């Protein structure tokens, strides 16, 4: 058996910190940021029955972070009685998006075809976004389940973005940028996003310039949203673990610095 090195102890410490915090599940009040509240208010203030496109623009690797964000937004939208059209611009997000929509729809008793539909994946995201602006029917003659577009009651009367209230892009990369550039830029459709924390600084300038109407970022954004809809979906408990992990990292940095300066002084002596 290999001798445990410093990095192994670091991992074990992180593993224990996160594991114990998640099991104990303390109560943690997370102040809701204005950014998250803007997205909440946007969905809240839409008239019930508004049609929204939810675009699952992520890969499987980011599901642990994306899932709580998507669950919160979908639950809020279904609770408000909005009609949702699910699409995926990345192949890997196709099945994940479908499952998330089906799960949340069942929680609120929403019916496939009447309250939500899942159209699935289309390649070449720019072409897909532009094509939907011309005709969603032509872009998706059939839904993910193989039903004809016209056989789905919810889609009757929906031709292109002019019949859609907005786009919610659930993304772990730069695909939301394409919704902004081609969806909002060309067709003036409101675009909001739920993105991983790593992408927050990429999209902040778009929020500041008003090109991205609203954004929820990372596990923290998910936890805030869960507080707003008063329904836990992994974000609040995850944020508790996140906070303890951050404290653990800060403690490690302090210990590392103490050891560094102590050894330097010893060498100088």
């Amino acid at each position, binding site marked *: 058996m290999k001798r445990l090195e410093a990095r192994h102890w670091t991992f074990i410490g992180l593993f224990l910190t996160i594991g114990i915090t998640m099991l104990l599940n303390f109560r943690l009040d997370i102040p809701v940021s204005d950014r998250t509240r803007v997205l909440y208010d946007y969905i809240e203030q839409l008239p019930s029955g508004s049609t929204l496109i939810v675009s699952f623009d992520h890969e499987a690797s980011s599901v642990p972070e994306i899932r709580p964000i998507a669950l919160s937004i979908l639950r809020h939208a279904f609770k408000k009685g909005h009609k949702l059209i699910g699409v995926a611009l990345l192949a890997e997000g196709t099945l994940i998006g479908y499952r998330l929509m089906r799960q949340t729809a069942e929680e609120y008793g929403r019916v496939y075809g009447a309250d939500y539909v899942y159209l699935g994946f289309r390649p070449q995201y720019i072409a897909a976004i532009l094509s939907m602006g011309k005709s969603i029917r032509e872009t998706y003659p059939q839904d993910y389940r193989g039903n004809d577009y016209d056989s789905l009651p919810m889609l009757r009367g929906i031709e292109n973005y002019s019949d859609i209230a907005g786009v919610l892009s659930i993304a772990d990369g730069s695909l939301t940028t394409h919704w902004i550039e081609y969806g909002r*830029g060309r067709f003036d459709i409101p675009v909001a996003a739920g993105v991983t924390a790593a992408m927050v600084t990429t999209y902040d300038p778009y929020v500041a310039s008003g090109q991205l109407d609203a954004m929820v970022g990372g596990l923290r954004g998910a936890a805030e949203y869960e507080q707003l809809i008063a329904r836990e979906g992994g974000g609040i408990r995850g944020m508790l673990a996140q906070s303890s992990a951050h404290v653990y990292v800060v403690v490690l940095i302090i210990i590392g610095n103490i050891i560094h300066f102590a050894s330097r002084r010893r060498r100088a002596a």
Partner: protein
Amino acid sequence: MDFGTIIAGILTLAILSFLYRDNPVYKMAESLLIGVSIGYFLVITWTNTLMDTMFEPLFAKGDLFLLIPLALGLLMFARFHQKTSWLAKIPIGFLIGSGAGVAIPAMLHARTLKQMSATVAPIISEGGLPNVGSIVVIVGVISTLTYFYFSREHKGALGKSARLGTFFLMVFFGTTFGYTVMSRMSTFIGRMEFLLADFLHLY
């Protein structure tokens, strides 16, 4: 517990075993992930792209217009033969031309013009007080741009502005790094949640 959860739990532990050291169990899980991802992508591409948007409309509905993209697509394979490789330039040229034509105006509008106009905000608020946020944005943009201005040596006022720009850049890099650490930590927390709740049923 369903079979899928057991498999997912074992594979998660197999991937995490890399934290101890590289091992055959990790390699097996990694190869499986790559294989399944490629297989899934191929199936989705076949069903949602080639079948839905090409073969079915072409052969079942007789949409002969689709012969053009089909021919362009097939010409891509001409690269594999030395004598015919020049033919691949036709679809590549089409892709570059149409891609640039579509992308350049949209990117210029969203990434440059809109962002520029958002930068130029009033520095005095309606109440007559200075708008600190707008001033910071303007100073940040100008000083950062001067840092990337290489036509003159960074001396005097230009040097001071460029130096200020580096501070803004450092703030950006620090924020981005912090968010990225947070993101990676969230991924680990997500897997821990799965292991503790779904796999081990500890809560």
